[in-house]
């Protein structure tokens, strides 16, 4: 199994619902807490496992605002696991989820340096590295109804821009979406082979342009067509 997420950049509206749901679930999950430093002060800081950045793509008037949620890509060649000196970072053989054993991490930051996606953040209170678990404590929970055995970010997304699934199964929803929509990896040139895939925005204009045609115009067009024939 190769579990991961597909993020649809066409439909994401940048509401930060996924980041909030993630923080809410994971602060009391297996790797919790996700501490904050000075949360209500002037300069709040804290560990988040999901960040949403907003870009302007293309030049005006043909530009598009794109919201890009980013969490751990659960790379197939996970450099964060290779560099870890304590063995706290590991990639599960059975489903490819990259996790940090909070009892082993010494907080040296080297895995965060090795990660090109900014997926790892040091917990300011615990001094250990925190990262997306793909909600490993939800997706296998037999007590939850089957349709809720998904990451918190996927469940909460109001535009259904996030899809969770097995990339090893060619008929899974994620594999089909990647095939049909031309899914892209971020920074593929580094060779980490990230599992999470991004669906580029569709090329149609955001607002349909309607042509106003008069009778005179349509007659003219018809005559022109006949003459050229």
């Amino acid at each position, binding site marked *: 199994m190769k579990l991961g997420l597909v993020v649809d950049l066409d439909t994401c509206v940048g509401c930060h619902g996924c980041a909030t749901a993630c923080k809410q679930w994971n602060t009391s999950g297996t790797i919790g807490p996700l501490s904050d430093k000075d949360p209500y002060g002037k300069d709040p800081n804290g560990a988040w496992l999901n*960040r949403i950045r907003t870009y302007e793509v293309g030049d005006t008037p043909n530009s598009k605002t794109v919201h890009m949620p980013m969490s751990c890509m659960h790379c197939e060649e996970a*450099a964060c696991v290779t560099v870890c000196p304590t063995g*706290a970072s590991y990639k599960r053989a059975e489903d490819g989820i990259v996790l940090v054993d909070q009892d082993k991490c*010494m907080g*040296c930051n080297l895995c965060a340096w090795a990660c090109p996606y900014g997926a790892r953040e040091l917990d300011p209170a615990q*001094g250990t590295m925190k990262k997306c678990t793909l909600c490993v404590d939800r997706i296998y929970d037999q007590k939850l109804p089957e349709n809720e055995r998904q990451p918190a970010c996927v469940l909460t997304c109001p535009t259904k821009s996030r899809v969770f699934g097995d990339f090893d199964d060619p008929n899974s929803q994620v594999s089909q979406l990647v095939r049909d929509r031309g899914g892209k990896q971020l920074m593929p040139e*580094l060779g980490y082979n990230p599992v999470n895939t991004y669906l580029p925005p569709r090329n149609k204009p955001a607002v349909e342009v309607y042509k106003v045609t008069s009778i005179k115009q349509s007659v003219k067009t018809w005559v022109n067509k006949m003459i050229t024939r």
Partner: protein
Amino acid sequence: MHPAFSVLVFTVLSGAGYGLILLMVIGHLLGLGELQDRNLLLSGGVLSLVLISTGLLASTLHLANPKNAWRAFSRFKTSWLSREAVFAILFYPFVIFYLTGIWSMGAQLNAIFVAAGIISAVLALVTLFCTSMIYASLKTIRQWNNALTPVTYLVLGIMSGSLLLLAVQSIVAGTVSSQLQQSAMALLVLGVAVKIIYFFWIGKPSGSTIKPATGFTQASVRLLDQGHSSNGFLNNEFGYTVAANKLLRIRLLMLAVAFVLPLLLLLSHNSLLFLIAALITLAGLLAERWLFFAEARHVVRLFHGDQRV
């Protein structure tokens, strides 16, 4: 990259310590006349142990959760940091055995102590190399991920060690070894050459841009919003930015303090000036290590709006 002071101290001091013991063992075992002295070898050995141990202790200060530091020996097969830790600890019994030999029987050692000396010199070199590979192995930082990083760490470690060895030799013996003096000067020239090559190399534009980072390879991409109102871990760790003109001034100051000034001081024949030369080289190398971090640009910066790293 944010330069953590404890890491700067660690790499400079332990680098100098490993360089010192490496050169001292080589000089001693190859029969360099001025190094065949019990007190000199003991002083040099103890000084290098003090520098290495201070550096290693300083390195634990940048750990956010140091109670798990003992686990750092467990991933020797994959992690350069783990390898560094293993070799750094393995170095101690051999060097202590070698120094015990010198303490008990002077400069004329028998085979088993000679072997311990050779092994400790090799381990010093290997540890220094492992330290450099922690940085050189990171594909995310173009300014580090190249062969010049290990070359710099090895050359500068051995260079600062040679200055310390010259200072210790001239102070303990009261005379100046022209061979040590000349080799220290040659290493200073080599060191400054390596640094200048490095500065030219990282000055060339290359590496990732915001386009493959965000996947929009056909269009221009600009950051509109980072998505948070104040700086987080990623901004503090990777967003560290120093103005280009300030970096240039620090580069020039570093080259003067770490290389040119010590070279001028080494033209004299005064042990006190040699000591000063060694100390200001260490200070200059702290600036060099600071620049090594401050000029390194992590690819995460692309997601935070940099067009190129």
